[in-house]
């Protein structure tokens, strides 16, 4: 029991530091610490599979992704005050904790209603819909990232099509049209006859 308490207190301290740290990179490292400590707690609770997944995904993949994103976006420290005043935020958090605590009462452990099922059978047979949702989520995530990471198009930039007709990217379009280096004015939608 003491080990559980020590690990969870350590995870909470790491979480506090992850929120408080002014540097993003330091926050990410504290977050990785939370993942490591939580995966140890999971292992001790007998949830071996989720411990391994948490350690590899939470402490490994997510940390690498954060470091990559910070290297691209920069470690920008914002000194301005928060949107919600800190006392109000603290009050809201206390209120949320109190409401969750009320929902969790009584504290007597519930009796298991069904017999224990092996993890593989539970995951693949009884929670098959969850697996389907996971596949859809991963697919949506990949498609979303491909759309976001793609090369941004600048205003007035031409997109050449296979038929040789060029068009102007419509967003951030300047009505005057930006002159091209060869003096050619971009083709605008307004140049075409509009239907009545």
């Amino acid at each position, binding site marked *: 029991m003491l080990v559980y308490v020590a690990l969870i207190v350590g995870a909470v301290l790491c979480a506090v530091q*992850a929120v408080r740290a002014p540097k993003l990179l330091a926050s990410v490292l504290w977050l990785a610490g939370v993942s490591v400590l939580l995966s140890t707690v999971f292992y001790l609770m007998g*949830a071996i599979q989720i411990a391994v997944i948490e350690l590899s995904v*939470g402490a490994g993949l997510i940390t690498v*992704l*954060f470091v990559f994103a910070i290297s691209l976006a920069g470690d*920008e420290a*914002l000194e301005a005050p928060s949107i919600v005043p800190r006392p109000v935020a603290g009050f*809201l958090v206390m209120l949320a904790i109190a409401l969750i605590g009320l929902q969790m009462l009584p504290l007597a452990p519930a009796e298991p209603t069904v017999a224990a099922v092996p993890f593989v059978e539970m*995951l693949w047979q009884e929670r098959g819909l969850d697996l389907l949702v996971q596949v859809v989520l991963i697919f949506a995530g990949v498609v979303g990232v491909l759309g976001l990471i793609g090369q*941004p198009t600048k205003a007035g930039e031409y997109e050449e099509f296979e038929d040789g007709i060029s068009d102007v990217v419509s967003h951030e379009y300047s009505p005057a049209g930006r002159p091209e280096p060869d003096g050619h004015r971009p083709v605008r939608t307004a140049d075409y006859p509009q239907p009545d």
Partner: protein
Amino acid sequence: MGIGLYGLLITRNLIKLVIVLQVLVKMALLALVAAGHATGQVNLGQSLAVTVLVADTVVAVIGLALAVQVRQRLGTLDVTQLSELRK
């Protein structure tokens, strides 16, 4: 979970928002597995936790890609400046 919620309320940096969201979800994971452990159904808690972990990872990936794009296009990661730009 309270730490993550507090961080969500006070944070202005987009990447930091994703970090505190991760903190929030990790504590929810702990609650799921602990509930499964307490009721003698660790495997049910694990299978639910796997789903949450996958969803959380996808959210983090999309959130980070969005933050990088916002930074490259608008030059800031401050959420208040983003809401001002919308006006």
